């Protein structure tokens, strides 16, 4: 996160790669180029922020396939698909696989730059959410099994007393557990806890 956001250009056409790099560098955007999807994946570091500029049509792994791959890896990466022709099925496919944007070739330079900046901004946000979610996830994982049970009952809206009764333990035990949960999950209200749990359970795209 400390690093400057970077545009990762993945295109098999050397001229396109070079011209994009020239353009983006001129526009003061840090740029790295890759001649195919595999090269990109080789050097891919999920910690680096930025966006991927992907050509849809490439030998070997196509842009859409790479996109799908990234989606499966569950990394906070924003993708712009570059295509020579945008027809509806493909656009649908691209969006389904999590592309942020789709730019048709040939493109207007200012348009491209604007959308790249936008995507990078989105990535910063996505990355923030992703990090937070990862953090929450870790917090959740630090709970004991008993605490997890209690947590799920709290989220269901059950009162401490009811929980104690249901689990056959004392009220105090549950209250202590509850305090521990609050501490571990770094929150001080049940409302916030429920929100966090909803967030974790929900679709990562539904931020």
């Amino acid at each position, binding site marked *: 996160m400390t690093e400057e956001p970077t545009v990762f250009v993945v295109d098999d056409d050397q001229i*396109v790669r070079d*011209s994009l790099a020239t*353009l983006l560098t001129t526009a003061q955007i840090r740029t790295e180029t890759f001649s195919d999807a595999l090269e990109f994946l080789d050097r891919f570091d999920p910690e680096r922020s930025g966006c991927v500029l992907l050509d849809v049509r490439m030998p070997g792994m196509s842009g859409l396939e790479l996109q799908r791959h990234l989606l499966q890896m569950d990394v906070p990466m924003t993708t712009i698909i570059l295509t*020579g*022709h945008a027809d509806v099925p493909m656009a649908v496919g691209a969006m389904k696989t999590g592309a942020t944007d789709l730019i048709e070739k*040939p493109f*207007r330079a200012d348009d491209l730059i604007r959308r790249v900046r936008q995507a990078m901004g989105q990535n910063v946000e996505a990355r923030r959410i992703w990090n937070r979610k990862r953090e929450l996830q870790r917090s959740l994982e630090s709970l004991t099994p008993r605490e997890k049970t209690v947590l799920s009952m709290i989220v269901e809206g059950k009162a401490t007393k009811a929980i104690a009764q249901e689990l056959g333990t004392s009220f105090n035990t549950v209250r202590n557990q509850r305090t521990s949960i609050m501490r571990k999950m770094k929150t001080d209200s049940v409302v916030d806890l429920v929100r966090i749990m909803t967030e974790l359970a929900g679709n990562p795209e539904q931020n």
Partner: protein
Amino acid sequence: MRWFTVIRGDDKIGSNDRGKCAAGIDQSMTIQECQDVYLDLLREYLAAGPTTVPGVFSEFGEGAADAGMSSADVIEIHETALECLRRDCPSLIDKSFVKLVSISLSETLNGYNAVKSRAPSTAPDSLRDVARQYTTTAVPHQIGVWDWDLKSNELFIDPGLKEMLGYADHEIENRPEAWAEIVHPDDRERTRTLSQAALDDRSRMFEFEQRLLHKNGQALWFLCRGRTIRDRNGGPVRLLGTNTNITAARLVAQEIREGVDRYHALIETVPYGIQEISLDGIVLYCNSACDRMLGYRPGERIGRSVLDLLPTQEEADDFCRYFQMCKTVQPPATPLITRHRTAEGRIFDVQMDWNYKRDATGAVVGYISVITDITDRRNYEASLRDARDELEQRVAERTAALEASESRWRSMVQAAPDYLVTVDRDARITYANRTPVGVPGELLHGRCVFDLADAAYRDELRTLLNDVFTTGEFASVEALARGPKGKRHWYSMRYGPIFRDGTVDGVSIFATDIHERKQSEALLHEAHQVLEAIFENTQFMIAYLDAEFVYFTANRAWSAAAAEGICPPFSAGENFFDIYPDEELHAIFESVVASVEPHSEWARPFHNYLGEQKRTTYWNWTLAPVKGRDGKAVGLIMTLLDVTDRVLAEQTLRKSEERLQAAQQMAHLGNWDWNLQTGHVEWSDEMFRIFEVNPENFKGSFEAFLRTVHPDDRENVRDTFTNAMENTGRYSIDYRVVLPSGTEKFLHGQAQVTFDERGKAKLISGTTQDVTARMKAAEQLRQSESLQRAILEAIPDMIFRMDRDGTILDFIPAAETPPFLPPSEFLGKKVEDVLPPEVARLCAEAQVRAAETGNVEVIEYRLDVDGQPHDFEARILVGAKEDMLSIVRDVSAERQAEERNRRHRDELAHVTRLSTMGEMATGIAHELNQPMSGIASYAAACLMILDSAESTPQSATLVDIINKIESQAQRAGEIVRRLRKLVVRRDSLYHAVDLMAAIREVMALVDADATHAGVETRIHTSGDVPCVLADRIQIEQVILNLVRNALEAMEVADVRRPRLEISVTTTPNDEVSVEVADNGPGVRPAEADRVFEQFYSTKNEGMGMGLSISKTIIEAHGGKMRVRKSATGGATFHFTLPISKGSPRD
């Protein structure tokens, strides 16, 4: 064979390894090299002058001898060297030169001979000394030198030579004339001629054989060799030479020659084939007997393989193997029996005696074989064997025949119906096969044979028996003797003598019972007498002719009639038809003879034999054949009775009846009368025929008649009849009768009733006509017509019959198709008045063509029937009676199906074309957009740089230009985009598609191709296949692409049993999976990734679009497409499509 080796040119001299010789001679040197050495020696010697003794020459001679050269070679070397010297430096040649040369030669020869004679070498100083030397050491070498000085005419002769001839040196003068005396008289002339020739000829050395006379008169053979020595002008100066005694050699040679000749003559005269065969089986020698035996020309077989003689490959192989074995093992030679084939191809048996041929060391170098033709011997043996066999067989046959004949004879005698008795000289019975009295023959043995005979014949029989005994000849007699049951029978007896040792020892008697014959002879005689009496006294005229119609006899009545000219006169031995020529009669006579059946005629007319003016007479006439023993006619009895008067009376009566009858018969019309008062019914002949009643059995009654009438008609007939009798007095009716034979007939009856004065019917007269044939024909016609019509009505075609003008005469409707108009509106009208003008014209033209060519013309047209367009196919042809038939079928359904199919194909093709173009446009767009993007980006970067830099007038211009560059790049991109939009016509229409229906549709399109290529196609499914969400046309296109690819791949690879399988399954991921598998050559792994690329094709004419489009389509549908190797090694293309929740449309 080469008996000696000529060493010339590069051949090495000598064979023994004794190292380097004296005077530079070496046995490895060639003659030429020796010559060079000698020449050098001569040059040195000449240069040094005559003072020195040239020891080098004798060394040379020794060397030459050691090297194994002949003396002739040495002399030739010497002389060739002289020739060279003379040629090189003619100035040297003078008297001293000659002297020196002579010395050199003699020295050389001396050295040579010294070695040859194994004598220690001395050093003579002149040629004469050499000669002298010879005399002391002469005997082994027998050579003498002579030197003839032409100027002084002095002939030096080696004393040794003289000694050889038995003379002392002084006894022969050293003059040519004296020497000539020594030469054998027969050789003198030749010697002189050859010497003269040597003088005349500049170059040649001479050599000849001559005989010289020994002092004791014996002629000795010498080889005379010499050369002419010439001065510098080329004139001869001397003749120099040697004479070598070759008498012994000649004698030996002659002896050898004679020996060989003798041996040869011997070999050539023996009758055996002798041949010499090399170890390899090659014939090296073959005598003439051998050639003769094998049919080859002399010498022809030399050098050929002996295996050629073996008639078969197997025999040749055996032979070859045997002699291979002989070569290595060398077993003792044993004669072989084999077969040879001659040059003409005859194969004969051969005995081959052979032995090894060994050289001096005993090594086997070949074979000598002697072959003998043993065919004759073999044949002789075989014929001997055959003869013996035949003899034995004959004896056996003979024995068997004898035994058979004996038993046959015995059984014959036993079984014979005749009596066989043998008697001895005293007429006592010695054997009897049977007895007439029924006791065994043995009981009669010893009885007198005549006891059996009737007493009246005994003497006659006895005399006859004695005659037989005395004459030894056969005799026969008929006599009465004892028969069965105590009666006397006639017997025919034959006496035969039985000879023993040349005299009659007994007589055999064959007695045949002829009693019955005798009795019938007596009866016959009696009958004959009776017949004779009748024959002569009857009123019938009877004549008997033989089978050739020659008069044999005629009776008295015949003769009497003949006298009146009524019948031909009898004349024994003459042919009946010579007297009375009549072709008709002749034919009858012949037919009677041929058939052996009597022929008789009632009242046959005969023309009077005596002339035309006499009246014709009528005769009942019979011609009966007389059969011979074999059943054939041997004669004819002709019987005649005059019936002329009766005939004439009847003739007049008959004529009138006949006419009526004939008329009735022709019309099948009978008439009848029924007298109601008497009950009498009279029918004409035809009535009987109609009712199939015999006139004799006819008992006509109305009830009987009614019974024959068909039950269905009976009532009607009765009513009509009654009505006629009571009221109308006449009737006319059609009815059927069923006759006793079961035949049904249609009859037409008409009758008229005659009434008496009281009005009561008294007579009915009527006619009855048989109209069955007419009715039946009409009925059949009706039936066949209705059948035909039924058939025509059942077929799906309408049939119009028209005349030539196009007027519709008749119409047969089709079972299902209604006509254009109701029949009432077109029958009788012209085609052009009924059908629309265009169709009518089409019909009219076709009709004209059909009428002209006689072919079937087929036209198609469309008419609106009941407001619906229908397609019709009309086949127009010439009908039966010059009219035209038009067979019209409604082909709307077929045309519509064809149309649908065609449209479907067109649509697919169109989509394919569009997809191809779209795919290409996409590819091109991609390719173009890449550089466009580049240009735009670079331009934009430039602009940004310029923007941030300090502004100058130039930078403003640059910004302007770069802006233009960018906008042009954008424009180009826009053009590409528009082009693509233009090409991609339609958006995909996604809906639920029945995939199986789509597959079947595609298979229907390629069915013809697949069948033609012999491809076995199969479609597998697992359970129900759910619908997929797809654009049906696009999916069909994909399937079609895959199926076509598979078919083409299999065809190109020429697969023996091409098979295409399409499998459709449902996957757990809510997808339908389709596999198209072939058993073609498959896709190579290296190609598997590339086949889906654009413009990549393994086909010669492929664009490389099909699979690329297919993949694009499938992926656009959210499916996947892959290729892999199929189970059979072919290619399997596999794609998936998502399942649709809806139900299929269209």
